[in-house]
């Protein structure tokens, strides 16, 4: 009695609903408003792109020794070429810049070793967090092992930018952890101290902190004791990002289920043991994207040191553009700075997104 059901074959969709034509129709021309928007967008692209290409590539001058030699009417990239060393290293003596290069290569190698499975991660972390900074400092500042002393007032350019960003984030990390733990603790005084610190710092702009570091810290130190301006600025930046870091880490701590704390307690672990062995490893892993975002913010903010008279990448470019023989090359300078900052920040934000995606699946069963 029963008839067998055979599903009829799937047909290809009508041509006007797939393919390039349909795509155009749906994505660009689906309504009169959309047609208008499409043409408006095309007009904007037409306004922006060809002139920029013409200026930056077609009519650009790539070499020369002064602005006067840039006669093609386009960008004067020769400016960047001439000042390139300064933009990278500041006034660091030319014959000593190999020291910076070595330190950078060393760091890259160390970080890359993380990917190697057989290496002991603990020792490697110690090497990076403890040994490397010392080595790098000796390399940068000199004064030992026959290295010539290079004063910090000569440090500048991208080197200084990266230094400020990296030191700021690395140094603020432990402080941020402590502040976050303090804010989460149930000891009222410790808690309020942390809250007051975090909220005060977050309420004021970085500039005021930098001014404090460069102008006010000396007033608070006993007479005769004073430290280097770079160090003061680093302290300022570290305190600043520690407050933001603390909030990011606190988010991670809050995301750890209560059961984890209880299980650790029930096993007899002490507060610090359970934090270090159980809670923090999980919490920190969760907030890596947040930490990267904080770093991106901080990296952009390092430009503010220019206002307190340090010459990072942007500062160097700004100063160079006042050079008499290169007047009128501001845009080239900004374009170059923009390219570098953008590449680094965009790269990092992609990286943090990738981590975020990986974390989403990481805790699941696989």
């Amino acid at each position, binding site marked *: 009695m029963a008839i067998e059901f055979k599903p009829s074959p799937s047909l290809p969709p009508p041509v006007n609903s797939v393919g390039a034509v349909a795509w155009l129709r749906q*994505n660009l021309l689906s309504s009169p408003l959309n047609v208008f928007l499409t043409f408006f967008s095309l007009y904007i692209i037409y306004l922006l792109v060809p002139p920029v290409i013409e200026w930056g590539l077609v009519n650009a001058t790539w070499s020369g020794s002064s602005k006067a030699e840039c006669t093609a009417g386009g960008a004067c990239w020769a400016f960047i070429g001439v000042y390139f060393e300064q933009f990278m290293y500041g006034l660091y003596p030319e014959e000593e810049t190999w020291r910076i290069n070595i330190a950078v290569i060393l760091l890259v190698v160390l970080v890359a070793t993380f990917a190697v499975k057989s290496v002991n991660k603990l020792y490697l972390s110690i090497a990076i967090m403890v040994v490397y900074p010392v080595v790098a400092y000796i390399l940068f500042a000199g004064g030992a092992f026959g290295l010539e002393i290079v004063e910090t007032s000569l440090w500048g350019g991208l080197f200084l930018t990266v230094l400020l960003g990296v030191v700021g984030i690395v140094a603020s990390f432990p402080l941020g952890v402590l502040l976050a733990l303090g804010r989460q603790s149930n000891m009222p005084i410790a808690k309020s101290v942390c809250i007051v610190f975090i909220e005060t710092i977050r309420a004021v702009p970085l*500039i*005021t902190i930098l001014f404090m570091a460069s*102008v*006010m810290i000396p007033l608070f130190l006993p007479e005769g004791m004073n430290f280097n301006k770079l160090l003061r600025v680093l302290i300022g930046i570290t305190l600043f990002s520690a407050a933001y870091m603390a909030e990011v880490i606190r988010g991670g701590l809050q995301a750890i289920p209560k059961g984890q704390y209880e299980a650790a307690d029930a096993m007899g672990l002490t507060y610090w043991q359970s934090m270090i062995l159980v809670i923090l490893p999980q919490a920190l892993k969760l907030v890596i994207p947040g930490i990267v975002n904080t770093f991106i913010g901080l990296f952009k903010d390092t430009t503010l040191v220019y206002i307190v008279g340090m010459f990072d990448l942007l500062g160097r470019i700004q100063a160079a553009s006042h050079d008499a023989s290169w007047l009128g090359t*501001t845009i080239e300078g900004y374009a170059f700075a923009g390219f570098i900052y953008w590449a680094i*920040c965009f790269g990092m934000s992609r990286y943090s997104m990738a981590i975020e995606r990986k974390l989403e699946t990481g805790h699941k069963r696989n």
Partner: protein
Amino acid sequence: MIDKTPSNNNSFLNDAGNRALIFQILLLALVVFVGYYLFSNLQSNLDNRGISTGLSFLNEPAGFPILIHLIEYTEANSYGRAFLVALINTVVISLLGIVLATVLGVIIGLARLSNNWLVARLATVYVETLRNLPLLLQMFFWYFAVLAALPHPRESFIFADFFLNKRGIYSPNPIFQEGFGFVIAGFVLSIVAAIALIVWAKKRQTKTGLWFPAYWSSFGIIIAVTLLSLVISGFPIEFDLPQKSRFNVTGGMVLPPEFVAVLIALSTYTASFIAEIVRAGILSVNWGQTEAARSLGLKDSLTQRLIVLPQALRVIIPPLTSQFLNLAKNSSLGAAIAYPELVAVVMGTTLNQTGQAIETIGLCMLVYGSLSLSISLFMNWYNKKMSLIER
């Protein structure tokens, strides 16, 4: 059972409560000690160097000019007045920036969601470019690079009575003559009428269901009545027109490039973050809500206005608040391009002329602190108002 020696060493230190207490007392002592140490250093440093302290300097004449002042200010005024001028400049640029950034951010955020591929891509490029560049760089760009490209005052771009050149944007400055009170009265009256119209329209709708385009027509009423009263009173308004003079364009109202550059940089930069927030907020509203609204016959514009936006706002407000706070704090970068805001006037000039580092920096931090606090309070209040009632 094997009886372990029960730890009866109920020593004071092993008590959890006591430990916490001791730790906290130590912490407090440390904080107090460090505070005291720094303070006493400060005292002795100030004494040794003969630097006077206190806020009395605020009453002394400042002696320096300020480019932009919205309240009366001359060099003869006091530092206190200068502080106030700078404070107003900071608040004004922050508020204007917040408004502009929000408008622009919402537009870009919606553009990113547009079903027009090209528009969405352009918006993405905007967001990814601006938010990955340091704000200071953008300010420098808007100030130094764009400034260099503008014409000299003598070759100003002129549009009607508007001038654009390196010195800023000049526009006619209205000067109100005697009969202007009449116009103001007309304006106020028309607003009252408009409100009445809206109330009436709502009532009528409740009763009869008939719709009257109350908002548009009240807008029309306000314009018409105001214009009419202008005509009747014989245009009691004169314009101080900008004119070319020896050095500058004089007269009129001017927006100096410092102001414009800070405003543009702040609002375009923050807009790139707000756009992402708006996008995420709208995406967070379940598609089912849109479908439900559509199946009730609501037009798409109404669906957005009545259903999607109110729900998206709930998600948008908290991160938006922190963007507003960032913007207010970032306004301090204006100092780098000669916009006379707090940092420039107080921590720059005043600090230098008086040497009162503690007081000036303290004042600035206080102002930023309260600015942040008031923005947070306002937004929290608004957030609470908007939040959903759940079971």
